[in-house]
């Protein structure tokens, strides 16, 4: 296959056109879904005209950013500690695995009691949801560092710090990248779910408002925005991940 990316584009474009067609001839009625072209128009219109758009978009974006950071850095450090304690790791394993079958955002009301209805609650929510993915990825990343690297470090007499920074950290990067990608995804879910439930600002709140007002066009415009944003972040991180992977595992 010469141009997989072109084929992918064709498939996605075909799917969008199909939906457009089904909407236009009325098989999908307007209350259920507006045609994709109108979603784009609605999105452009609100980004230009609606006074709430940029403040709300910025609020969501910033909260997701901070939540991601707060899941990645502490998640990495906790991962390091747990990796050093194999017995703790063995018992925590099923807890980590079942963590993502429970909607952690049920604790959101409890966070509101502690922090109030504000960005802090949303950020902690997103970080709580993202951190376990990073901890798990860190554990895997350290596991996958080839043993021979440690031997090389000893042979060339690197200090423990040098070994950690120059050998272990770079060697763990490919799997850490996977963790970062997952942490972003889960932070997005945590923040947006929180905005659905109670918030004073944010795209999730706007989405719920639009749904309650039967404002289908605005609703789909916002869904499109979140969809595109999440897809772009994910594709960029995936590319980066692939490149790092290739560099490390070329041999």
């Amino acid at each position, binding site marked *: *296959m010469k141009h*997989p990316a072109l*084929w*992918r584009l064709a*498939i*996605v474009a075909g799917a969008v056109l199909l939906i457009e067609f089904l909407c236009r001839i009325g098989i999908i009625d307007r*209350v*259920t*879904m507006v045609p994709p072209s109108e979603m784009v128009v609605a999105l452009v219109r609100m980004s230009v005209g609606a006074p709430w758009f940029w403040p709300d978009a910025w609020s969501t974006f910033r909260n997701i950013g901070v939540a991601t950071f707060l899941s990645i850095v502490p998640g990495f450090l906790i991962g390091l500690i747990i990796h050093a304690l194999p*017995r703790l790791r*063995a*018992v*925590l*394993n*099923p*807890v980590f*695995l*079942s963590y*993502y*079958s*429970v*909607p952690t955002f*049920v*604790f*959101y*009301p*409890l966070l509101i*009691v*502690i922090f109030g209805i504000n960005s802090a609650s949303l950020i902690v929510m997103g970080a709580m949801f993202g951190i376990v993915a990073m901890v798990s990825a860190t554990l895997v990343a350290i596991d996958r560092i080839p043993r021979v690297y440690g031997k090389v470090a000893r042979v060339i007499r690197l200090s423990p710090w040098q070994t950690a920074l120059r050998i272990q950290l770079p060697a763990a990067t490919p799997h850490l990248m996977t963790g970062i*990608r*997952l942490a972003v*995804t889960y932070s*997005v*879910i945590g923040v*947006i*779910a929180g905005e*659905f*439930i109670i918030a004073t600002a944010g795209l*999730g709140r706007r*989405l*719920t408002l*639009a*749904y309650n007002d039967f404002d*289908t066009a605005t*609703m789909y415009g916002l*869904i499109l925005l*979140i*969809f595109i944003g*999440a*897809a772009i972040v*994910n*594709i960029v991180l*995936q590319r980066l991940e692939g490149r790092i992977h290739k560099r490390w595992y070329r041999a």
Partner: protein
Amino acid sequence: MKQRWTDYAILIIAAFALWQAAWYLAGSEALTPPIETVRRLGVLMEGARFWEHARASGVAFAFASILALVGGLVLGIAIGANPVAHEILTPILSTLYSIPKIMLYPVILLVFGLGLSARVAFGAMHGFFPVALFAIGAIRNIAPVLLRTGRVMRLSRLDTVRSILLPAALPEIVTGLRVGFSATFLGTLMGEMFASSEGLGFMLIRAMDIHNVPDIMALTLLAFVIATTANIFILAVEERIHSHGA
């Protein structure tokens, strides 16, 4: 193995101690202490309404799981066995997997209305992608020499699938089923929270709306215990299959 169980016991005790400490710090407005939560769960379980909701959740989860697991496996194996399809479609699947599907709850409500099908759809669309992606990985990671051996022995297509493809791919497929199970469970609960009028997720969101902390805690504990027990069980099966292959 025996040490493992002792460690689990220590973990549970430590978790309860931490939980109790958190309650001292945050107060009853934010959470209830462990003993009271367990007691509250017991009280909830005595009510007839609870079992109606639990049954509704069970039915939705069962349908969602069947859809996600069967659909994901069929698509995953089909794509995994076809290199061209893999190259084109797998990136699309993994992007769809990572998109926060929670934002689609209004769409699901508009399409399916407030009923069983909405909850099933929400659960299934969470579980489907991980199952498919793990199945693709499982098929792609089969050592080519195994398939070549099959060709040398002139196995029929069916025999190749049955005696080479499936056994070789099984460990990773089971891992995918476990991840898919977790995701379907989460998806079903979220579907019930945002797009339903029955089920344990609905009980949960109602408790959240009226700020009924004991009920939130009790139901969350229940969900966590169910998910963890199921994961420990599937993990044991997985370890067995993995060691069998080695």
